[in-house]
């Protein structure tokens, strides 16, 4: 069965902390994505990756970075968390470089920055 897991369902951090959100997929997918979801704004793409050590900026990369050292793992990093980064973060993966194949999503991490 297809599986995308995220390290935490809920996370509370303080302003200025460095935050790591981890995503792991077990489907040998090449493509991985990070989105944030906010009420009324839908899903917005932060970063994506088509291969190990590759990354591409999405629509809202400011304040975030990513790391993909292994094919199955894609990490989102908030270098210095701010309150406006309080949100639901969703990770997804898909097969093949076309990127139009079905995306499989993790359960999400709800991050609160105080």
């Amino acid at each position, binding site marked *: 069965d297809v599986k*995308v897991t995220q390290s935490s369902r809920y996370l509370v951090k303080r302003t200025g902390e460095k935050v790591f959100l981890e995503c792991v997929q077990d489907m040998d997918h090449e493509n991985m*994505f990070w*989105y944030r979801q906010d009420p*009324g*704004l*839908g*899903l917005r*793409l932060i970063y*994506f990756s*088509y291969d190990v050590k590759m990354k*591409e900026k*999405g629509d809202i990369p400011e304040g975030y970075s990513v790391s993909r050292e292994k094919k199955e793992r894609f990490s989102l990093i908030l270098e210095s968390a701010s309150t406006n980064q309080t949100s639901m973060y*969703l990770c*997804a993966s898909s097969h093949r*470089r*076309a*990127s*139009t194949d*079905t*995306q*499989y*999503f*993790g*359960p*999400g991490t709800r991050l609160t920055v105080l």
Partner: protein
Amino acid sequence: AQSVTQPDIHITVSEGASLELRCNYSYGATPYLFWYVQSPGQGLQLLLKYFSGDTLVQGIKGFEAEFKRSQSSFNLRKPSVHWSDAAEYFCAVGGKRGNTPLVFGKGTRLSVIA
């Protein structure tokens, strides 16, 4: 640039009634179209997708969607709604231009009343 519009932010239907959720897209070539559903506290699950061929596509949970190129629409339908269908629904568009991520609409929240 590709875009997706879901005109209805929130819809309420009675259990057993029919449902239609609207989706309009903007894309310069033949689009790949998706509907995802997000139950409360969960990640997104694929309901159905259209790549080519028959413009009426069937999905899981009794949902179907019709691609109408002339109207740039991909509306989601279900003949009889169940209380468990209460969720948020996202339409997304992509295309086979290589390494172009999906673009999601802002979502429509469905409430089901007895």
